[in-house]
């Protein structure tokens, strides 16, 4: 096939009806820019949602003892050996944390509430929400800290305050009932009230002493990429033989479903835009082809094969689509850049809190999305040109060249 000839003809024909093609180009560019911007918004929401789950003590992977997830107790933990610590540090330095997490009842003079008591070593919590919260009073300084860090919302519900005493009631490592008084050292203000009601922090070793155990109940790994990686899972299985390894999606099926739904919504939106575009493209190309019916006839008279005429029409369509897609992507990218990469939803703070989203939504452009949009658009452009290409070819030679 004389490809250079086809490219030359297609390229020149784009400028033949400059105004019509410009309108078509702008339509494609606007649609693609819209797709890119909405994609960035949905990707940002997805990322925020996933991040909020991952940093809320879930991590990407969580290692627990069998049965702990169904019935979390201090007795259903495991002892972290120096060898395991060495392997964790070698593979994911600074990205793992060992915690002791058990349900417990916290009681003030007026109220009591069921919460999760979380024993942490703050050095290992750089990636979790613990490192980001606003504080009143003191934080958990080290693994020996005995003063509690309680959420603001929980403090309000308990009608208690920083510096006051509360009583923690639960089961120790052997399943025996245990009760002890603690001082509230500080209060934290997190993104979303759920976290403030759900968690009470204490130093891990102090908690082990309280529960009379040497065990931890989980090791959490927080990586840079939230996608499931079988190699990581296999490494963890090798390090923690006999323990349960779960990905964040396993423990948060609702969030995982929501993330998948967003993915699907992006695809639906993209399909709708592309179908609308395809109609416009077909319409414009059919008009262009009908105007050039005689020209295509002449080319066939001179010996051009039907398939080559078909290729030429498809190539023209591909060029228009490609130019529109590149322009649209540039415009979409510029639009995202103009927002500074985030949209402040402060005016809808209550609504977004209910939806579990932060008040500032980040916009994220994913290179893979851009490549997919480019690829799918061009494929669709080529398919959309099949109708006009067929029409360019359907006449007999004598019909085509007749005046």
């Amino acid at each position, binding site marked *: 096939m004389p490809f250079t*000839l086809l490219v030359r003809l297609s390229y020149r024909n784009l400028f033949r009806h400059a105004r019509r093609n410009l309108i078509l180009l702008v339509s494609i560019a606007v649609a693609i820019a819209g797709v890119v911007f909405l994609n960035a918004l949905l990707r940002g929401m997805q990322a925020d949602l996933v991040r909020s789950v991952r940093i809320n003590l879930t991590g990407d992977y969580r290692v627990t003892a069998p049965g702990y997830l169904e019935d979390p107790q201090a007795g259903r933990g495991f002892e972290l050996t120096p060898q395991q610590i060495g392997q964790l540090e070698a593979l994911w330095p600074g990205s793992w944390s060992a915690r002791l997490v058990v349900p417990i009842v916290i009681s003030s003079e007026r109220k009591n509430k069921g919460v999760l008591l979380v024993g942490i070593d703050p050095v290992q919590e750089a990636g979790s929400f613990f490192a980001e919260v606003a504080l009143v009073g003191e934080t958990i300084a080290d693994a020996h800290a005995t003063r509690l860090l309680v959420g603001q919302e929980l403090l309000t519900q308990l009608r208690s305050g920083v510096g006051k005493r509360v009583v923690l009631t639960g089961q120790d490592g052997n399943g025996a009932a245990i009760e002890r008084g603690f001082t509230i050292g500080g209060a934290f203000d997190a993104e979303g009230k759920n976290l403030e009601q759900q968690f009470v922090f204490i130093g891990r070793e102090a908690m082990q002493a309280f529960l009379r155990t040497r065990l931890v109940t989980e090791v959490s790994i927080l990586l840079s990429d939230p996608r499931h990686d079988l190699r990581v899972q296999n490494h963890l299985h090798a390090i923690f033989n006999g323990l349960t390894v779960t990905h964040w999606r396993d423990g948060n099926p609702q969030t995982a479903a929501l993330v998948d739904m967003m993915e699907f919504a992006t695809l639906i939106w993209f399909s709708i835009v592309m179908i609308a575009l395809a109609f416009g493209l077909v319409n414009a190309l059919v008009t262009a082809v009908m105007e050039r019916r005689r020209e295509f006839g002449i080319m066939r008279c*001179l010996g051009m094969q039907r398939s080559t005429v078909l290729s030429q029409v498809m190539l023209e369509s591909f060029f228009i689509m490609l130019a529109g897609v590149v322009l649209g992507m540039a415009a979409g990218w510029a639009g995202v850049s103009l927002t500074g990469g985030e949209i402040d939803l402060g005016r809808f703070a209550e609504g977004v809190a209910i939806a579990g989203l932060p008040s500032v939504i980040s916009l994220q452009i994913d290179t893979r999305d851009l490549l997919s949009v480019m690829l799918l658009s061009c494929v669709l452009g080529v398919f959309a040109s099949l109708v006009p290409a067929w029409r360019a070819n359907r006449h007999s030679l004598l019909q085509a060249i007749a005046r």
Partner: protein
Amino acid sequence: MSGEIEKIEKIEKIEKIGRPVLQLEGVSRVYADEGVPVRALDEVTLNVQAGEFVCLVGPSGSGKSTLLNIAGGLDRASAGRVILDSLDITGLPEHQLADIRLRRIGFVFQAFNLLPVLSAVENVEFMLQLRGERDVRARAMDMLRLLDMSELAHRRPAELSGGQQQRVAIARALVGKPVLLLADEPSANLDSKATENLLSLLRRLNDERGVSIITATHDPLVMRHARRTVTLQDGRVVLDSGGR
């Protein structure tokens, strides 16, 4: 170098002359016009030898263009055989006919039919590129030079006069060295001076290069330049002035 080329072309011309280039054997073409059969060609038998300059004449509707279309593989005969350069093209599928049009036939149309987005030289190159050949620019320029069009080689068709466009069309038709040049009313859109120039050119190509030409025309000027005149009426050959 150009002397060598001329020598080769003369040898080619001698080898070609006298060889049958087109044979129509009892060719008929029947169209259905609103259900009524119309016989455009009626058992036409015609032989054209290499190097001939044949002029098809006759009133409108006599079958001149139909004969050219069938000879050029643009239309199919309803009956009879069409043999082009020793190849029976009667029942060939469309893609093979397209290949034959590309490699063995040169077309010159009444309306020039140059591709408007290509320059003169690109229009000539078009044929060579379709054939997947090399050195297309040099060969196209050589052909335009032969037709005194090299100075206008980079102009688009819209920037050329009718006579100039027809020269480019002839250059396009001849650049691939076809065995037969078919010209349907080539002077219809030209003034008398441009027609005279065109005919001198065709005659020169026929004399010097042995290009076989069949042209359909109403124009007495064209008829005067042809060496053989075939008259058609109601789809039949009614008069043939004979060969060279």
